[in-house]
């Protein structure tokens, strides 16, 4: 399975490097949204709960953009047919796609988080960075798993661009909630505190649970 996941992931990353269909759009969306918040909130800087909320809602919507493109090549270029004929575990496709979306999110955040710090954040971003990276990675894992599962479900429907966000956003409420709660103390004006362990644990448990559910049902999703 590792061999198949590696091949599928390599193919997706190669295609993205050559087409730039997802990452630039996601990044541009995130940065543009920060600019809009900057003017829309009429505040030169944010901190604490509000800063965390703005950051996570923006990243979530940026992720939905990438999620919509995740299976397009498989659907439009017959990749599903070829994959279903191949003697590999169906969940290899799920794992590869989730890893691809996770990688896209990490790349987007490398640009978007500093942009957030520059455009909106009051407190310094460097101090809370290690804690923030931990929260980002845990939340990205949840977003990638749910995003991949829903994208696989929606790709064969006519209204996939509508269905994917409608299903993804409610499923990711726990991630946004836990990530915001874990991020808020990091972005406090009074000085960065460590991320609360309880919310990190909730994120980790959510990732594990939804990961197992997705791993279990993806096979049937693909067959049908």
């Amino acid at each position: 399975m590792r061999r198949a996941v590696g091949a599928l992931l390599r193919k997706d990353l190669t295609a993205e490097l050559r087409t730039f269909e997802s990452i630039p759009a996601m990044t541009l969306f995130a940065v543009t949204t920060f600019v809009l918040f900057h003017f829309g909130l009429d505040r030169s800087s944010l901190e604490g709960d509000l800063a965390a909320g703005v950051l996570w809602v923006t990243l979530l919507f940026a992720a939905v953009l990438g999620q919509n493109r995740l299976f397009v090549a498989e659907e439009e270029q017959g990749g599903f047919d070829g994959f279903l004929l191949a003697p590999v575990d169906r969940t290899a496709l799920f794992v590869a796609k989730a890893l691809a979306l996770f990688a896209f999110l990490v790349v987007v955040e490398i640009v978007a988080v500093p942009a957030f710090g520059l455009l909106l954040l009051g407190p310094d971003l460097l101090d809370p960075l290690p804690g923030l990276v931990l929260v980002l990675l845990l939340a990205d894992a949840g977003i990638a798993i749910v995003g991949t599962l829903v994208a696989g479900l929606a790709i064969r429907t006519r209204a996939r661009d509508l269905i994917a966000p409608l299903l993804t956003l409610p499923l990711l409420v726990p991630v946004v909630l836990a990530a915001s709660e874990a991020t808020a103390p990091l972005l406090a004006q009074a000085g960065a505190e460590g991320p609360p362990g309880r919310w990190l644990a909730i994120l980790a448990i959510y990732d594990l649970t939804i990961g197992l559910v997705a791993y279990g049902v993806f096979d049937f999703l693909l067959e049908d």
Partner: protein
Amino acid sequence: MQAPAILVRDLHKSYPSIEAVRGIDFEVARGEVFGLLGPNGAGKTTTVEILEGYRERTAGIVSVLGHDPGQRPRTLRERVGIVLQGGGVYRHVTVRELLDHWAHLYPAPRDVDEVIELAGLGGKQHERTRSLSGGQRRRLDFALALVGDPELIFLDEPTTGFDPAARRAAWQTVRTLAELGKTVLLTTHYLDEAQALCDRVAIMKDGRILTIGAPAELGVGALYRVVWRDAETGEVQSRETEDPTGLLHQLTSAALARGEPLRDITVARPSLEDVYLDLTEEPSAAASQEVRDG
């Protein structure tokens, strides 16, 4: 004796409105190139899709390389190649990258360089797949079916839409597969293709197999057709006979006696095309009317 690559017994497939396959039986030996012929709606593609495991049968026994394809077992998927028309060809990767990608999904793939050569894509391996011509794309489809080094290959209408040069190239690839000892099951509308490639063919119509055998043998037992041009009227005459020697003697003697040449004379057994048309041709409206009136 080796078990057949494909065994089909009393296969039925029904849809709510139609019975697409109505109890067919055939076997395909290992290393054989077998053709399913028939007009649109004959049930060829349904049959092939059942054998590929894409479609569930309603009744009957089907064995592909000793497995029930309806279960889609992984061991069977390792040993079967299917030419998907354009399926799995990602546009932003090169020919080599694409083949390398699919090769990684098989446990014992054929060497990618060898596959590229077999498919005649040697000069195109570093080109992006989206820049290939139609004929090259079809060769790439063949290459994708070969990359897992399958024992059995399904070709469903493999040259539909090809220009003549691409068709010949595809035929050569099928011949190469046969030389490699692969079993090939192909469906086609083109009788010249079946005649050129297949060891045996089955002609299907309305979900049934009408006849089965080697293309050259399907006309055996039928009458010889002698055709010539009448010297006086210039019209083409034809007659069917069991004894062409006697008829030719009679015709040439009469022509010599009249001092006239016997032009455009041919003696032929019914070709695969004749047999096919004879078996599958719909009765004309006039004939139907006659039957009704009669």
